[in-house]
């Protein structure tokens, strides 16, 4: 009795599955052929109906397919994941069709109809993107107006700085206690010297290159790197100041943090370029890039301070009490007990701040530094290369996206790692 019932049900089910999958395949085929091969199999239908035809077809198909349990693994997971209700089925179809429709034009613009050969605008004959433009301008986008034959200096400076950053991993066990000292004090100084002497030159027989010629993506890295290493110690001091029980120090720290967090970066940059020179002694000249780096550092330090404060607050009170009961003073307690633990907690937060910093650096374009957005603006208005704004911005967006996505994934991993360790 029970068995036969099951069989009848399953027979019904089978027909439903056949009808449903046929309708679904037909609807997807319609959209697919339409967008990839420009064949319209539902063209015989009147105007508007032909647009909605695959949607209706697919919707019917999915509703035929929807059963609680069919026994087929693929169908069950399909039902569970994309076909639970009518509304879900509709959204599924909508998204699938949108992707199917948008994919071919994007593909043909970016790859099939695009040009990359040649060195002039005339080489771009296709209807798609003109990657020749990117190819010709690539060095400018990366290095700005830095002399072509000196690019090795930027490359080697970056390699050295990155290499020195990894030195900490190879510290021997007995040197590990100096790790923090190395990263907070020694490393920034060495990195600064390397970048200063190697990139700007003027010593050791290297030709002087003024900062006005720096630009492109390398400037983004220089600015964000310096701002990070300088804002970190400042942020630490501010965070300690904000948690201090001395009212004057606390209020000054709070005032500083809230002030910088309350103003947009662009006004800070304006301040650095037009207001700051007024505050310096008369004959004292400070390079624009240096002023911008100082301004961004002061700005980011406030955000950094809040992140570090979060780490300090997350430590249990017992740590403070234990350190005090050992007779440690304020500085001893913080340097040997509190900060090592707190800084470990805030690494993901700092990584996020750094991510925000990298995303903010294109703004220096506003005060006339030719960072990648600035180089794009320059290239776009070059009379020989008019009309390729789209390619330029898409290129820059892809580069930034890769950098930022990698960083955000990395900081997420760090977060997960430290979450389990505690």
């Amino acid at each position, binding site marked *: 009795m029970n068995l036969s019932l099951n069989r009848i049900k399953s027979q019904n089910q089978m027909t439903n599955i056949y009808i449903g999958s046929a309708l679904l395949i037909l609807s997807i085929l319609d959209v697919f052929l339409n967008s990839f091969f420009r064949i319209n199999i539902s063209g015989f239908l009147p105007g508007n109906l032909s647009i909605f035809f695959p949607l209706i077809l697919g919707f019917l198909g999915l509703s035929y397919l929807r059963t609680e349990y069919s026994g087929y693994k693929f169908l069950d997971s399909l039902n569970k994941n994309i076909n*639970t209700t009518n509304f879900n089925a509709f959204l599924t179809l909508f998204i699938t069709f949108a992707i199917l429709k948008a994919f071919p034009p994007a593909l043909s613009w970016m790859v099939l109809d695009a040009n990359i050969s040649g060195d002039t605008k005339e080489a771009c004959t296709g209807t798609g993107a003109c990657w020749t433009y990117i190819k010709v301008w690539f060095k400018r986008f990366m290095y700005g107006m830095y002399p072509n034959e000196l690019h090795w200096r930027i490359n080697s400076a970056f390699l050295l700085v990155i290499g020195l950053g990894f030195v900490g991993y190879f510290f021997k066990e007995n040197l590990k206690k100096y790790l923090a000292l190395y990263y907070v004090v020694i490393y920034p100084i060495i990195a600064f010297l390397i970048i200063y002497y190697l990139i700007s030159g003027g010593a050791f027989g290297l030709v002087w290159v003024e900062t006005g010629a720096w630009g492109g993506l390398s400037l983004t890295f220089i600015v964000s790197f310096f701002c990070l290493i300088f804002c970190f110690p400042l942020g630490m001091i501010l965070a300690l100041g904000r948690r201090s029980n001395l009212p004057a120090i606390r209020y000054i720290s709070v005032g500083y943090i809230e002030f910088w967090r309350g103003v947009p970066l662009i006004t800070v940059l304006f301040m650095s370029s037009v207001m700051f020179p007024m505050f310096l002694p008369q004959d004292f000249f400070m390079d624009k890039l240096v002023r911008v780096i100082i301004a961004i550092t002061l700005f980011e330090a406030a955000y950094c301070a809040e992140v570090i404060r979060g780490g300090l607050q997350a430590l249990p009170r017992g740590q403070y009490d234990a350190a005090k009961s050992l007779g440690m003073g304020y500085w001893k307690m913080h340097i040997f007990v509190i900060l090592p633990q707190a800084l470990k907690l805030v690494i993901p937060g700092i990584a996020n701040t750094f991510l925000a910093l990298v995303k903010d650096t294109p703004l220096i374009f506003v005060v006339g530094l030719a960072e990648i957005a600035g180089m794009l603006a320059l290239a776009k208005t070059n009379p020989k290369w008019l009309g390729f704004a789209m390619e330029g911005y898409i290129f820059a967006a892809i580069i930034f996206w890769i950098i930022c996505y990698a960083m*955000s994934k990395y900081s997420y991993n760090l977060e997960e790692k430290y979450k389990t360790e505690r």
Partner: protein
Amino acid sequence: MNNKIKRILPQLLTILFVVLVFGFFTINAQVNMDNRGIDFGFGFLSQEASFDMQFTLLDYDGQDSYLWAYVVALLNTLLVSFLGIIFCTILGVIIGVARLSQNFLIKNSAAWYVEFFRNIPLLLQIFFWYYAALRALPLPENAQPWFGVTYMTIKGYYIPSMIWENLNVFMSCLIAAIVAIIFIRVYARKIQEREGKQLPVLYISLALITILPLLSFLIGGVTLDFEMPVLKQLAQTSFIFEGGIALPPELIALVLALSLYTSTFVAECVRAGIQGISKGQKEAAASVGLTPNQILKLVIMPQALRIIIPPTTNQYLNLTKNSSLAAAIAYPDLVLVFAGTALMQTGKAIEIVGITMLTYLSISLAIAALMNWYNKRIEIKEK
């Protein structure tokens, strides 16, 4: 004694340091200004601004004062922020809820949307929309109407403008309706607390807010006309639209970029808020016999909102501050008009940058104060 010195000395040193830094800057600034023949003061605010703005909400021309230019520019900034906040909230809530969907495709497309727009610098997005995407729009003479009456062209988006008669009657009806709704809500809550009865508040509210303004059309003598944008030929090949409201491409690019960018952060806030409610809450509510709708309305949402609202407000604040990127594409906002043009003309760097920063700072602090007050209000009061 020793302790007292330990407490006071660092404070004194810090204060001394701050005073010295400020003093150093002030003296330098005075010397510099003397040398350049600039004097410090805000007198310039009442002078004639003598520059034009492309897009204004209030009447403004070059003969108005710098102060009025400041107000008009500030309004432009607030307009962008307001529009951005509305769109980013709508988008953010949709995406945030979609990320929690059980549908594999929806969940993943929402996740990719967030990853995509969050990881591209905002300035590049603004440039992309302004210089690349909106430049691909048709010229006015080739524009096809959207929704029949609006035109999206390379020179901006043209929409019909409304011409009201007796607008104040309509407005007072609207206000009356809102006041009535508030009263009904309070009354309904009282009734529910006293007798456990639930009034259909939503339907009553909807009815009130549609019927009262409608009545003002029928009885109050309110009329509404639309002025359509009409294509007009200026010269052989030059066409423009006249009439209606023209939204400049700068505004569109800004609002698009700001809302797409910020919506990803709002979406994350919404997702975190809804995920932050433990499953037990839902199950407990169900076991008390609440319907799914009631569970969402009475149990989940009030708690989720408590988690969602503070970080979301922070994002709104970020959006407002980011709207200053308008200066990069020449949308006449506070930074471009005041810290740009006005500063060039008057040379009052300290005063003008100071005013601009203080303006943003006071917006931020005001919203932060409001937020603190709200947080105090909704705090779970544990007994």
